[in-house]
C-alpha cells in the first residue's frame, strides 16, 4: 500500500513540471498563438536558473533570497525566449509553427551548453534543499514538494481563475477566438498577445528549473527536459485548454509516465527492457484518445481557440 501511495505522491510531484509547461502554453494558445517553442523555453528557463544559482549558491545570502535569485534567472531567460517568439510571430507575423520549432532547437542546444559548463556542486548540491522547503528534511516522496511545487499549483489555479472569471481573461479569450472583433471593441490585441505569450513563456521556464534543481536534483536531468516539454504541449489538449485542470491532468500524465518503473515492484507483472518504452508512450496514447473523443463530441467549448495559429493584421480582409 505504501508503495502505491508513494507512487501517487511522486507522480503528483513529477507532474508539476507538466503543470508549468501546460499552463504557460494554455495562456499563449488562448491568445491565438501556438508556441511549439515551449520545450526549448523550458530548457532555457532551467539553464538560466542554474546559471544564476551557481553564482550565489555558495554565498552567505539568506536561503529565500538564493531561491529568488534562481527563479529570477529562470524568468529572465524564458522571458527572453518568449520575447523573441512574440516579436517574430506577433509583430513580424512569421509562421508560428516554424518559429516555435526553431526556438525549441535553439533553446535546447543553448541550455545544454550552459548547464554542461556549470559546476553541479555550485548550483545543485548547495541549493537543492533550499528549494525543498518546507519538507527539506524528509526522505519520503513528500520531500519533492517544495517551494516550486506549491508555486505550480498556485499558478495553475490563478491562471484558471483569471482566464474564466475576470475581464482580462474574457478579453484574452476574445483575442484568441476572434481578434477582429476584439479590435473593434477597443481591445489592444497586440498588447494582449505579447503579454500572454511572455507570461506563458515565463511560467513554462519555471518548469525547467523545477525539474533540474528541485525534483531531480542531478546534473543529467537537463537532458530530459525537452521530452517533458513536448508532453506538456500534449497535456494542453488533454485538459482541453483549462489551466486549473492541468493539476489533475499532470498527475495522470505523471502516473502514466512513471508507471513502468513501479510495475517492477509487482511480482506478477514482468517488466522487461523492451516494454518500458511502450509504457512511456502511454501519455501520448491517452492524448490521442482525448482528441478523438473531444472531436467526436464536437462541443464548441472543447475546441482549440478559433484563430489559433493565425496572425492578425488589421488591414487584411
Amino acid at each position, binding site marked *: 500500500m505504501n508503495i502505491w501511495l508513494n507512487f501517487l505522491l511522486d507522480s503528483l510531484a513529477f507532474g508539476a513540471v507538466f503543470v508549468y509547461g501546460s499552463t504557460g502554453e494554455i495562456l499563449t494558445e488562448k491568445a491565438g498563438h501556438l508556441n511549439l517553442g515551449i520545450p526549448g523555453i523550458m530548457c532555457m528557463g532551467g539553464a538560466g536558473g542554474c546559471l544564476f544559482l551557481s553564482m550565489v549558491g555558495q554565498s552567505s545570502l539568506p536561503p529565500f533570497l538564493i531561491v529568488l535569485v534562481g527563479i529570477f534567472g529562470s524568468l529572465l531567460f524564458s522571458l527572453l525566449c518568449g520575447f523573441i517568439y512574440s516579436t517574430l510571430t506577433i509583430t513580424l507575423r512569421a509562421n508560428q509553427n516554424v518559429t516555435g520549432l526553431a526556438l525549441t532547437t535553439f533553446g535546447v542546444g543553448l541550455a545544454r551548453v550552459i548547464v554542461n559548463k556549470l559546476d553541479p556542486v555550485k548550483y545543485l548540491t548547495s541549493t537543492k534543499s533550499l528549494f525543498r522547503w518546507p519538507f527539506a528534511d524528509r526522505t519520503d516522496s513528500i520531500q519533492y514538494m517544495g517551494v516550486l511545487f506549491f508555486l505550480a499549483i498556485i499558478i495553475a489555479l490563478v491562471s484558471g481563475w483569471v482566464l474564466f472569471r475576470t475581464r482580462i481573461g474574457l478579453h484574452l479569450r476574445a483575442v484568441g477566438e*476572434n481578434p477582429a472583433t476584439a479590435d*473593434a471593441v477597443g481591445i489592444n490585441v497586440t498588447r494582449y498577445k505579447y503579454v500572454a505569450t511572455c507570461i506563458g513563456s515565463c511560467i513554462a521556464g519555471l518548469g525547467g528549473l523545477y525539474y533540474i534543481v528541485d525534483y531531480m536534483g542531478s546534473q543529467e536531468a537537463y537532458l530530459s527536459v525537452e521530452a517533458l516539454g513536448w508532453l506538456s504541449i500534449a497535456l494542453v489538449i488533454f485538459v482541453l485548454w483549462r489551466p486549473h485542470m492541468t493539476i489533475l491532468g499532470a498527475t495522470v500524465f505523471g502516473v502514466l509516465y512513471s508507471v513502468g518503473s513501479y510495475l517492477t515492484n509487482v511480482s506478477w507483472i514482468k517488466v522487461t527492457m523492451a516494454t518500458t518504452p511502450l509504457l512511456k508512450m502511454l501519455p501520448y496514447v491517452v492524448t490521442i484518445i482525448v482528441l478523438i473523443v473531444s472531436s467526436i463530441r464536437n462541443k464548441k467549448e472543447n475546441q482549440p481557440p478559433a484563430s489559433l495559429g493565425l496572425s492578425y493584421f488589421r488591414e487584411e480582409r
Partner: protein
Amino acid sequence: MEKQIALQLRGITKRFGPVLANKHVDLDVYRGEILAVLGENGCGKTTLMNMISGIYYPDEGQILIDGKEVVIRSPKDAFDHRIGMIHQHFKLVDLFSAAENIVLGLEKKGRYNLKEINAEVAKIAERYGFHLDPAKKIYDMSVSEKQTVEIIKVLYRGADILILDEPTAVLTPQEITRLFDVLRRMKEDGKSIIIITHKLNEVLEVSDRVAILRRGEHIATVNTDETNEAELTEMMVGRKISLNISRSAPVNAVPRLEVKDLNLFDKEGIQVLKDITFTANGGEILGIAGIAGSGQRQLLEAIAGLQPAADGSVLFYNPKKDRPVTFYHKSLKKVKEMAAQGAFHDRNLNDVSFRGMRDKAIRKWVESGDVLFREDEEMNLRGKDPLEIRQLGIHLSFVPEDRLGMGLVGSMDITDNMMLRSYRKGHAGFLDRKKPKEQAEEIIRELQVVTPGVSTPVRRLSGGNVQKVLVGREIAYAPKVLMAAYPVRGLDIGASYTIYRLLNRQKESGVAVMFVGEDLDVLLELCDRIMVMNGGRITGFVDARTTTKEEIGLLMVRTEQREEEAHE
C-alpha cells in the same frame, strides 16, 4: 414640443482616390425620431454612416452633436459621443455568451461579475421588448438573435444615436416586424435612430423622415407621411442612369444544356430543387432571378457536379458535328465502339467503319484528322463529379458566389490559382508553371486587375479584382457553358461593368451563359431570357427585352408554375 437636434452633418465630403463617395452632405437628426437614409447601392449611404461611427474620417465638413462640433476618429470616439453603429456583418465572438459579447472590451471598474451583467443585459432587453437569454452562446443563435445582441451591445454602452446598416437584409418578415417594434420603443425612449436601407416599403412603415442620397449627394429630406413610394423612387433613382451594356441579339442559338425534371435534396432530406426543366442555349445569356435562397445556387452546383441530384437529367450537347475525332478524351476502344454505331464520317460524308482494320491503322487515320463526328455529342452530366465532367472533355465553367471559399484559394497567388484548373497538365508528374503564369499575366493585363504582381495572394486583392481573376480563369478555360452566381455582388460600378462586358463577349462567341443575379435592372438589360425561381421551382420564363420588373417580381413570389408561361 420643439424637437431637439441630436446630430448635424455640415458639408461632409469623402473621397476614395478619384471617387467622390460623399459630396457636401448636410443632414439633421432629431432626438426621438427614426430617420431612414435611402439610396441605391453604392450611393454613399454606408460611407456617410461610417464617418459618423468613426470608421472613416471625412475629408471636409463638420459633425455636430447637440450643437457642438466633435471629432470622431475611431469607433471608441463614437461611443464616447454616444453613437453606436450596428453593421451588416456582425462582430461577435461565437464561443461567448450574449452577455460576454456585450461587455467585451469595456474597462469598467469593480469586480467582473457575470451574474450582475446578465441581470443588466436582461433589464435592457426587457425595457425595449427584446427576447434574449443573456447566457445563450452566440453559436446557438439565429441571425436575428445575433442582431439583437449587437443592438443591446450598443445600448449597453449608452448610445443615444443608433445607426443600423441594412438591418432587415437577413431577417424574415416576422423578425422584421419585431425589430421595428423595438425601434419604435427606442424612439419613444428619446433615442435617435438612423436606418440605412434601399427598401421603400420598410421606409414608409417605420421611419418619421427620409433622407435620400443619390450618387453621394443629399437630394432631399422629406417627412414620411407627406410622401409616397413613387415620389421616393424618383428622387432615389433620379434621371435613370441607363446601363451601358450593349446587348446583341442571340446568333445561332442552339441548345447546349438541357436540364430535365431535376430534383435535388439537401443533407436533411429537404427538397431544394423540384422538377427543374429548362434549356440553356449557346450564344445566349439566360438570367436566373429569384429571392435569395430559392435554389439558384443549388441548381448551378447540381449542374457543375457539386451536388448529386436525386433524379432527372442534365444533357450536354457537345458541339462536335463535323469536327475531327481525337484520342484526347476517348480511348481507342471507345472510338471503335462509336464507329460501329455509325457515329463518324469522313471528309466525303461517307460512313467510317473500322471493320477489319488493324489498331495501328485506325490510330493513324484518326490522328490524320479525317475522321469527323456525324452529330453533336450528347452527354448526361448527372451523377458525375467535376473531374469526371472535365475528363469527358466538357468545358463547363462555374463562377460560384463564394469567391474565396469555392472559387479561389485566398492564400495562393494568381498563378497558383490558375493552376487549379490546369494542374493535371504537364509532363511526367511535374507541374507546368509557365503557362499558368503567362495566363495570369494575360488576365491581369486584359482585365486590368489591380495587383502588385502575379505572386500576390488573391486574398489581398479587392473584391472586384478577386472576381476578375476568377472570371478570367474560368473564361480562359474556353467554356461551352459559363455559369455565374452573383458575379457582381459587392463590386463597384466599374468592376461590375467589366464583368458584364466579359459575359457578353462570351455570349457572342457562342457560349451558353447562365447568370444568377439579384439586381432586376441588370438582369433586364443584360440577359436574353430570364428564368424565375421560387422555393426550388421554376415559376416562369420571360423575355428580358419585353418584360417588366413587376412581372418578374410577381413570378418571384408565385408558388406554382403556370402551364402557359412555362415555355414562353
